[in-house]
């Protein structure tokens, strides 16, 4: 059965309902050591106001900042079978999953949503590095396919924020198979003539970089994001020499032709909207922070006739 026919109506979701009071009111910038007040930090999209270091941002925080009025609908992702290999290392995989769910409050390592950015309709997918290092398993694969199918169905662009340590080893070969599976999703967008924009955030590595994260129509990275296939430590061990300063960082990749742009997080929304509207031949956007769009009442489904 096709997932489009399986499609479940998206649930309206607002970040405000989920926003909790942080336990620590102060966060220390890992780069420069400045103590940052939580309100100031979140107003600044988790970017250090002293040194511009881009800290991690959860998918909900990200969508809250991107979508008009912070309002978006979650796109449902088909649930894969749990623990297909009965994987056990020092811990059982289901125990690791339970732990990740408990600490993040999320179901899995990717969130898919639809909504409007400066009144520009988009589908967005965002990987959650805090959930088992954002690792790509069957759920992430399903999420990207669901996002692509939804984008095709609604004729909207897909913006994907990547962040991952790579494939989820606990799903063995089935995690590796997400490389071709997510590439099928990219093919769907390509065939439909819809923009697919990848925003590479820190860090994007391994099989994620070597599949959907490097197949965008546009590649935009956040400053200083580590983007690579093999990590710097593995390379240093292999070639037995120190790597140059900034190796595999966003600016380095920009210099080496792998990215279109490196963009500060505060400018990201406007830049995404600007390029999407040009790519889709839409008039320029009305800029600025817009309130949430009016939700139109749901049209009732007509009764099935034979």
């Amino acid at each position, binding site marked *: 059965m096709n997932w489009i026919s399986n499609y479940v109506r998206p649930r309206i979701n607002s970040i405000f309902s989920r926003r909790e009071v942080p336990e620590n009111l102060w966060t220390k910038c890992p780069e420069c050591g400045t103590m940052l007040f939580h309100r100031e930090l979140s107003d600044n999209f988790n970017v250090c106001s002293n040194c511009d270091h881009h800290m991690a941002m959860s998918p909900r925080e990200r969508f809250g900042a991107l979508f008009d009025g912070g309002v978006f609908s979650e796109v449902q992702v088909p649930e*894969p*079978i749990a*623990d*297909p*290999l*009965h*994987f*056990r*290392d*020092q811990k059982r995989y289901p125990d690791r999953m339970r732990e990740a769910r408990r600490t993040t409050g999320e179901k899995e390592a990717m969130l898919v949503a639809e909504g409007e950015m400066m009144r520009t309709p988009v589908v967005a997918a965002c990987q959650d590095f805090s959930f088992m290092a954002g690792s790509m398993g*069957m759920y992430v*694969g399903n999420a990207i*396919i669901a996002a692509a199918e939804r984008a095709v169905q609604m004729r909207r662009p897909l913006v994907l924020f990547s962040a991952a340590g790579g*494939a989820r*080893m606990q*799903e*063995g*070969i*089935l*995690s*590796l*198979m997400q*490389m*071709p*599976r997510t*590439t*099928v999703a*990219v*093919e769907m967008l390509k065939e439909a003539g819809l923009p697919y924009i990848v925003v590479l955030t820190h860090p994007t590595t*391994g*099989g994620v*970089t*070597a*599949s*959907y*994260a*490097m*197949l965008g129509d546009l590649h935009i990275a956040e400053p200083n994001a580590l*983007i*690579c*296939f*093999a990590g710097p430590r*593995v*390379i240093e061990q*292999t*070639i037995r*020499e120190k*790597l140059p300063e900034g*190796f*595999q960082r966003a600016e380095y990749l920009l210099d*080496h*032709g*792998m990215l279109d742009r490196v963009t500060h997080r505060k400018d990201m929304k406007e830049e995404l909207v600007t390029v999407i509207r040009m790519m889709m031949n839409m008039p320029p956007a009305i800029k600025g922070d817009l309130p949430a769009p009016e939700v139109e009442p749901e049209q009732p489904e007509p009764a099935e006739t034979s």
Partner: protein
Amino acid sequence: MKNYLEFEKPLAEIEGKAEELRALARQNDEMDVEKEASALDAKAETLLKDLYADLSPWRKCQVARHPERPHCKDYIEALFTEYTPLAGDRNFADDHAVMGGLARLGDRSVVVIGHEKGHDTNTRIERNFGMARPEGYRKAVRLMDLAHRFNLPVVTLVDTPGAYPGKGAEERGQSEAIARSTQKCLEIGVPLVSVIIGEGGSGGAVAFATANRVAMLEHSIYSVISPEGCASILWKDAEKMREAAEALRLTAQDLHKLGVCDRIIKEPFGGAQRDPKAAIEAVGKAVEAILDDLSKLDGPALIKDRRQKYLDLGAQGLAA
């Protein structure tokens, strides 16, 4: 056989003894050792049968990496005629870790692409141990395009520890090169058959093995990460590779149950390294049979078939 694997040591002893006896007899006409030597041969055969009847996943990894296992070059030389290697990615270099070109398989013209590991120190260095750099994947993309334009089936022979973790490889866009190769595999309107002949290492394997049908030799492996790499990350101890190999479920048999592998090609008794000729023939037969089967599908149907294969994966797991 010069190279015995660690777990084959008892076998090496018995075969060594039989060999010694026969050497003695050759120097001394009076001695008749044949009876004793034959008994040792029989013992060795039983032991070999026992050893290979139920190889643990880690032992399979060792067999898959056996230096005397037939490699891509051996398959190409034995199975194909008029093989004409085609070089270069038209961008930067020719990657010697990746072989590829036009060839005939039976009466079919095909494009063949594969990883070559090399068979001695010099060739291993020349082939970079079968670890492709970006140029290797870009050469493959070019050859797949060629196959598509001239309506030639593509046969890929996969045998790689993985992509090469080097500075230049990263600078020249290893990730993008692998991603584009996987994408190209999905886009070509010709049959694409892949055989894992040894090691199917991670993204470097996926880049060639995103095929309509994936066949695996009986003792080959295909994995998201090497057991050693997995052990050092998850167990924080690279010596736990046996446990990691078990947990990863990387054998042809498990991958067949998961639907990743469509067909297991039986290896000669004691592994492909003991009878390379028989292994190569078995691969040839399997590839021809699969190509016969796929010849019923036209271009769009082949593309659809390939996509569906990957979309459907993961519907079932393995028993505990």
